[in-house]
């Protein structure tokens, strides 16, 4: 399903995991658990050695995945092998996109991503200003290019991002890096208000860790929630404590369900959505 189409049905739950964390096989099971738990879209991280936007939890996941041998080619194999319903988005850093394939530039990466069934890209170190080449490649191969808006994003920049974004807009709930938090930021509502009239669905991420968070965010007007660290924490815990894969997978599935349920509960409290 196309990304925008996903949001047209109900509030979207968008979990994130790092592909290959801690190993190719385990990771495969965890992603499947997300699907079972109700994921609408999965942001599947392709690990990069310098993940400047990530907090400690995801940094460590990336180290595990890299140590486990994850590479862009393995990643694409992973996606090909994966048989799940949710729409897949690749989240990675620009250097990997740029370097992929024989010749420099993002085309080869996008082409291959499209081939294996990826519907969109999130590149946290690629602001709208630097995105023309990738935007063109995505357009050519029918991929969406998701951008992030932050609490600090100025009005002028919002306009620039609005021109470039497709699929959904990733609303960064707070300043800082990724990571599960105990509280939610007021700035989420503020940012949502600033982009209220955008046509593109709005998914909020950074710090969402519980069903209650999920509900609150959706109630505040979001079309979807993005959850990374709270799920990666479970992978890390399983890996650190040597919990077996099936058990970890089921904990992930449960957490996913909690979050999805929270999102749905939020939906019912939202003002009637104007469907686009």
């Amino acid at each position, binding site marked *: 399903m196309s990304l925008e189409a996903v949001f047209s049905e109900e509030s979207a739950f968008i979990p994130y995991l790092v592909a290959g964390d801690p190993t190719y096989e385990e990771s495969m099971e965890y992603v499947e658990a997300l699907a079972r738990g109700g994921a609408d879209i999965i942001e599947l991280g392709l690990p990069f050695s310098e993940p400047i936007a990530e907090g400690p939890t995801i940094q460590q996941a990336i180290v595990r995945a890299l140590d486990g041998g994850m590479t862009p080619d393995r990643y694409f194999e992973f996606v090909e092998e994966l048989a799940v319903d949710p729409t897949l988005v690749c989240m990675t850093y620009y*250097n990997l996109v740029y370097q992929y394939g024989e010749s420099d530039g993002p085309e080869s990466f996008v082409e291959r991503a499209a081939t294996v069934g990826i519907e969109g890209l999130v590149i946290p170190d690629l602001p709208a*200003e630097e995105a023309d080449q990738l935007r063109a490649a995505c357009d050519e191969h029918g991929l969406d290019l998701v951008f992030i808006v932050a609490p*600090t994003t100025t009005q002028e920049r919002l306009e620039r991002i609005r021109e470039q974004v497709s699929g959904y807009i990733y609303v960064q709930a707070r300043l800082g890096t990724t990571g599960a938090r105990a509280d939610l930021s007021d700035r989420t509502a503020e940012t949502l208000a600033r982009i209220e009239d955008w046509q593109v669905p709005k998914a909020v991420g950074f710090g969402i860790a519980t069903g209650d968070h999920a509900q609150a965010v959706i109630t505040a007007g979001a079309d979807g929630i993005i959850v990374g660290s709270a799920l990666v924490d479970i992978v890390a815990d399983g890996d650190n404590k040597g919990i077996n894969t099936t058990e970890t997978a089921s904990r992930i599935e449960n957490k996913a369900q909690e979050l999805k349920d929270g999102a749905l509960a939020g939906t019912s409290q939202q003002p009637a959505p104007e469907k686009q």
Partner: protein
Amino acid sequence: MSTERPFGKYGGQYVPEALMPALEELNEAYERYVLNNEDGFVDEFRERLRDFGGRPTPLQYAEQLSARYDRDIYLKREDLLHGGAHKLNNALGQVLLAKYMGKERIIAETGAGQHGTATAMAAAHLDMPCEIYMGETDISRQRPNVFRMRLNGAEVNPVTTGRGTLKEAISETMRDWAATVERTHYVIGSIVGPAPFPSMVRDFQAVISEEAREQLRDQTGSLPDSVVACAGGGSNTMGTFHHFVKDDDVGLYAVEAGGDSLSVDEEAGVAPNSASLSTGEEGVLHGARTRLLQDSDGQILESHSVSAGLDYAGVGPELAHLVDTNRVSPVNVDDELALNAFHRLSQTEGIIPALETAHAFGFLEAVEAGKRDAALGETVVVNVSGRGDKDLETVVEETTARDIDAGPDMDLFRQVGRSAGDGK
């Protein structure tokens, strides 16, 4: 602004959205204060560089080296700048700019600790709270610099990710910045990172070549035939080159760390060198498109150099551009040549250089020995980017471990090592 692309295909702003507004704000401040001297920023900066920093630094004729190489060798003495390296030019500029911008807090990364100490000094001088991120590995191998930062009142935050060196420290500082960007300024330590940092840091460092060009003309009536500087990120390099770039006849040599070897171990993810201009490829790291040490997938390699300050997988986009356009010649010098040059300069000129700096002198020797081919000409300006006090322990260890021709007899070092150890 990023559309201007002053460095050809290199440069740009590859950072999280949360930082983009800060870069725009910084760019505006850079244009107003640095480029247009609004509120007398540049005047105040120069005055503080003079009174606090000790500028101008001398351009010294090096008698023994000139005799050895049969050329006139002039040394630009950035080692005499307060703090012991060129780093203060930039740190002072940025901390002052942060003050003009109304920021309340300074953060910075550091590898060898030189940029961290310079930033801590500048922040103390300008009464700004300051936190420095430093990899754990670097913390334990650059002890004196950790002490200096703490003594200047800065917090030092150990970075435990990855190998715990400069690359990880930069990433971690960017993360702090992403969380605190509204009241915090991130003082990047070289001509790397997203725009406007590479241009701005270069402008702060350009005082080196501004002075050197003038001083050489005063002393000899003419321009040098070539200018040599070591290159890590490349800030002392571009600082030393900048005002000579337009002088087409002046050869510009950027000396990178050849480390152990120029070949790469893809399996281990390690490049046993830091020669991104000589051997790296275009890519995106820490906010900028530039030349990098990376594997074929685009993963960043762990670099290596005996000198912590050159031990970095990237390089400034401006240098990458000047190399592509053949204005700057990238050359490299391995650990052993650098150590020999360290000892030679110490013994024959009475100047103990930083290990980073020693690479620039290693290049002179390599040319003399026919190991590198370069038309250096009659008159050569070499930038002494820093002094070697911070490197004493490393040099003693590395010289003892290897067979360094130019090294002194190491016996007394061992003896002192023992008795100092016993004494505690």
